[in-house]
């Protein structure tokens, strides 16, 4: 597992894998893909790093406090985005009804709340994958 070639290839490839995952998350509303798939790709990049370089260095990249925070506040972020609709006098999770500017069709900033919600869900899924992996891998001492 501590192979030199493996470490070099991972150091070359992992940034691009993570970049691709972030691309899929951010472009979920203009191209195929979405927050779930992109989040899983981002989480898998962290998992591959922890598998190749050792659990301690992987844990240094993603501390337990970070996954705990994202896990706990991810759904709250979704609810907060939904509360915008209520504050503007529209139903919960309303997007166009709440009078939010939808932007130009096909642009990255289009869709109003959709891209924000997708970003939240993507980070959520990534932290779920990482938390599952580390919880199963770490020794019960």
């Amino acid at each position, binding site marked *: 597992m501590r192979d030199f070639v493996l470490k070099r290839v991972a150091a070359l490839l992992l940034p691009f894998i993570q970049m691709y995952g972030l691309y899929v998350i951010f472009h979920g509303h203009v191209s195929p893909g979405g*927050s779930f798939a992109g989040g899983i790709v981002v989480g898998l990049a962290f998992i591959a790093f922890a598998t190749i370089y050792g659990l301690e260095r992987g844990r240094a990249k993603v501390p337990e406090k970070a996954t705990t925070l994202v896990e706990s506040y991810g759904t709250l972020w979704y609810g907060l985005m939904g509360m915008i609709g209520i504050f503007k006098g529209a139903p919960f999770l309303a997007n166009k009804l709440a009078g939010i500017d*939808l932007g130009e069709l096909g642009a990255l900033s289009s869709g109003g709340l959709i891209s924000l919600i997708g970003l939240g869900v993507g980070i959520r899924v990534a932290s779920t994958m990482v938390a599952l992996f580390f919880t199963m891998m770490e020794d019960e001492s």
Partner: protein
Amino acid sequence: MIILLITLLATHVVLLAVAELPPYGMSGNPSYNQVAQRYIENAREDTGVLNVITAIVLDYRAYDTMFETIVLFTAVLAVIITLKTTEGEGGGT
């Protein structure tokens, strides 16, 4: 032996049912009713995104996705409760 016979019978019934299905992707299939047509026609004006699937998942069916994230949270919570042994403060098991 009797289990094998039952399995073969069930496979036969399933294959009979599958042979009666309409081919996938045809526009005349019963699953393409007015709901799908309305979403395809109105998604761009309603939500402002190009990807209709994202429009349905994150806008028309936003409640569904919200509770999906709660399901993810519950799954991670169950795994952590089952597998994680805490040390230190908090009075872990």
